[in-house]
């Protein structure tokens, strides 16, 4: 069955994020004076096939470890859901 993963990759806490700092400055300049911090990151939406939830979860974890997030400077988190619409279309073309 088909799965959709939304993977969020962010710099580890403590590592300076000049892009986030610049965005924060811009927000404050626009009048959002209560903005105290912005951390930037990446969002990746990944559609893929896996037999069951455990296999899908394991696959996303491996993708993050091997490629999507640097073990030195980044952390990854993700949300995973079955792509029911795609599966229904496959069952009733």
């Amino acid at each position, binding site marked *: 069955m088909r799965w959709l993963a939304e993977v969020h990759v962010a710099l580890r806490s403590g*590592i*300076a994020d*000049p*892009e986030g700092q610049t965005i924060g400055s811009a927000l404050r300049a626009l009048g959002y004076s209560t903005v105290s911090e912005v951390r930037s990151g990446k969002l990746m939406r990944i559609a893929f096939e896996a037999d069951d939830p455990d296999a899908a979860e394991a696959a996303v974890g491996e993708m993050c470890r091997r*490629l999507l997030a*640097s073990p*030195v*400077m980044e952390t990854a988190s993700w949300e995973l859901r079955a792509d029911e619409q795609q599966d229904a279309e496959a069952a009733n073309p």
Partner: protein
Amino acid sequence: MTVVARMPRVAVAVFPGTWSERDFVHVVESVLGWEARLVWHTEADLGTPDAVVLPGGFAHGDHLRTGAIARFSPIMRSVEAFAAAGGPVIGSCNGFQVLTEAGMLPGALLRNDHLEFRCDWQSLRVEHPAATPAWLGDLADGDVISLPISHGEGRYIADTETLDALERDGRVVLRYTDADGRVSPDSNPNGSDRGIAGIVNERGNVLGLMPHPERASESEVGGTDGLRLFRSLDRWLREQPAAPERRLSSG
């Protein structure tokens, strides 16, 4: 015994988006009179080089992270094997980023702290050159050299433990300084931790640096300090006892 003299051979890796490979070939062939071979990243066979260069550029568009995709190219298995056998490897700029992504050097390189691409001449202090005789053997501890930098993502970072270990083991071999060799926030062009510009692996045969030695190897382009790395390599190769037939000096 017949000793066949030949010039040093240098393999230069080329990924889609690499841009400094021709400059390295120019220095190796036209300035030094050695042999250079460009090796496309999908090739696993490096030939029989005496040294391997990972040049600067934007391998695979630097997508995801600099060097993150290049490290999976077939050529990297061969580069790793060459390095594991003690062969000299230099990664400049994007090549340094590839080496860190491949786990051949510790740490990582991030967006410059000021978010700008920086292209300039930069003073660098040489430290512990004996840690990497193949690449810095002709330089002395404390020498201040000038090399071009040209990068948007050169901020070297590592955790404190790793940084302390690198310093303790004398593996920080190039540091951003002012012209007098002093480290200051103003002399650091990208916000690198502790002003680190270049490091070596434990064995000392793999050097990663953000600056471009190939762009400072002829006086016509403004400086020749980069040539001192190649001269170091030349001497080091001549001193290797293993294979006298391997090469003789270019003099």
